[in-house]
């Protein structure tokens, strides 16, 4: 076993995912399958190999960011338009601080 149901429950907490008991059981089976396949990578000696974090282009292109100048952005009304709950120009969430 690469991963137990208890570990699945812990990882689900980290990922903010509510899983049912059935889902937890099935998840442990699936993740074990996948992680066993992933073990394959240990056959490879990667000592001294640079990790590839992004696609690096062969050419000599320079990374050029756009000038940092103020420009019109999304207004509050548009930004809030898809919120399940909003009011007074803010997203509303369940109470976080006790008064």
């Amino acid at each position, binding site marked *: 076993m690469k*991963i137990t149901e208890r*570990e*699945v429950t812990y*990882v*689900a907490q*980290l*990922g*903010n*995912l*509510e*899983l*049912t008991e059935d*889902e937890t059981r099935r*998840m442990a089976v*699936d*993740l074990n*399958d*996948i*992680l066993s*396949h*992933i*073990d*394959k*990578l*240990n*056959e*490879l000696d*990667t000592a001294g*190999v*640079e*990790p*590839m*974090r*992004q*696609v690096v*282009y*062969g*050419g000599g*292109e*320079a*990374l*050029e*960011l*756009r000038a940092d100048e103020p420009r019109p952005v*999304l207004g509050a009304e*548009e*930004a809030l*338009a*898809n*919120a*399940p*709950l909003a009011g007074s120009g803010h*997203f509303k*969430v*369940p*109470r*976080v601080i006790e008064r």
Partner: protein
Amino acid sequence: MSEVPVGTLDIRTIQSGLRTRRFSAVELAQAALAHAEAENPKTNAYLELCGERALGAARRVDEALAAGREPGPLAGVPVAVKDVITTRGVRTTCGSRLLANFRPPYDATAVRRLEDAGAVILGKTNCDEFAMGSSNENSAYGPVRNPHDLERVPGGSSGGSAAAVAQGTAVAALGSDTGGSIRQPASFCGVVGVTPSYGRVSRYGLVAFASSLDHIGPLARSVYDAALVLEVIAGRDEMDATSAQVATSSYTSVLDDDIRGLRIGLPKEYFTDLASETGELVMKGVAVLEGLGAEVRPISLPHTDYAVACYYIIATAEASSNLARYDGVRYTTRSAQADSLQSMYRLTRGSGFGTECKRRIMLGTYVLSHGYYDAYYLKAQKVRTLIARDFEKAFAEVDAIIAPVSPSPAFRLGEKTNDPMEMYLSDIYTITGDLAGIPCMSVPCGFTAAGLPVGMQILARHFDESGMFRLAGAYERASR
């Protein structure tokens, strides 16, 4: 407008039809919308048609034509857009319950460039939830059916885009590709599908799945149409810092070029585990290219066998981070049971995400969690270097690589849903191109005895879309 054969039109026919006044852009858009609405129940390719927006775009084309202005290279062309790409004010669900009512406040750059070129966006196409899947069975809005056999999957995750183009309810479509999600459905549905170089097309407005792997690209019924759509959407965009500052060129202008002397590599690792008909059809395609004067030689990409493992670490790690934003605060859906902030996150995500998304969030969270980062994520990034180097070495010897797209043609609905690992392994031949970031495409190369389409994959050097299209153009011409 029954005299407009909307199901079989190509871009050039539309341009000449508009300019000779055989039909107006509005007439064409009306016919295309009616055709899509009538045909869609067969495949479930579209999730939403946006008639008003389409007719508005068509009207602008007609006005330009009436005023003698150039209406753009895609004037009047009915196009479908995968539902992971934002369209201002038009529902964009990403195939997820979580975004059931999401109306984006802005257009993706690729969408804007299409409309600036005169294209008429008909609607949004079905896909696997957040583009995670190889069969389109992970959509919260029901699977898409393959137009060639309605009991089979269209492939995924851009299954709706491929099916719409194959079915004739769009002339071209935008898809997205992270591990094969354009090429595999293109091959299953018998259309052309292009994954451009990483950085070639802006991802501004593409809902993020795995940021170091995500691409936007076109699907169409001909190589010319796919090349033209790519020409329109390609190029640096200052709204996407990862879009490359590399000159784009005319991909349509190389389609008639000679391919004599071009060196083509056949990677032996891609031909060992194939359905026999798939292998035969791809080799027939190779023979056509050889007949046109290309030099074919065997090559080796020795780390191919590690690609699936490498990909499912990197893609899920990035996905677990990108999908963290769906927490019940900003995007349309929140669990009604939540009484605290923490339970709002957990319940919204637990009830909102489908099984495959949950599996990938879990795997990604696990491989990034304390104590596992080096063993999994860092290791995978190093193996990614080895896979990219395989291609670099190969491209020192050859100008392009030909390979199958998928080990087998379209499978039956439900056939692989119970075994995620088996589904993942079927992505082996497409994942490698995404990991390396090179341009690759699927070109139809024939049908199996049962009538299922098969695609041949062409892979080329970074930013050598021209070389890739040159081969695709020559092949299409010779095989017609």
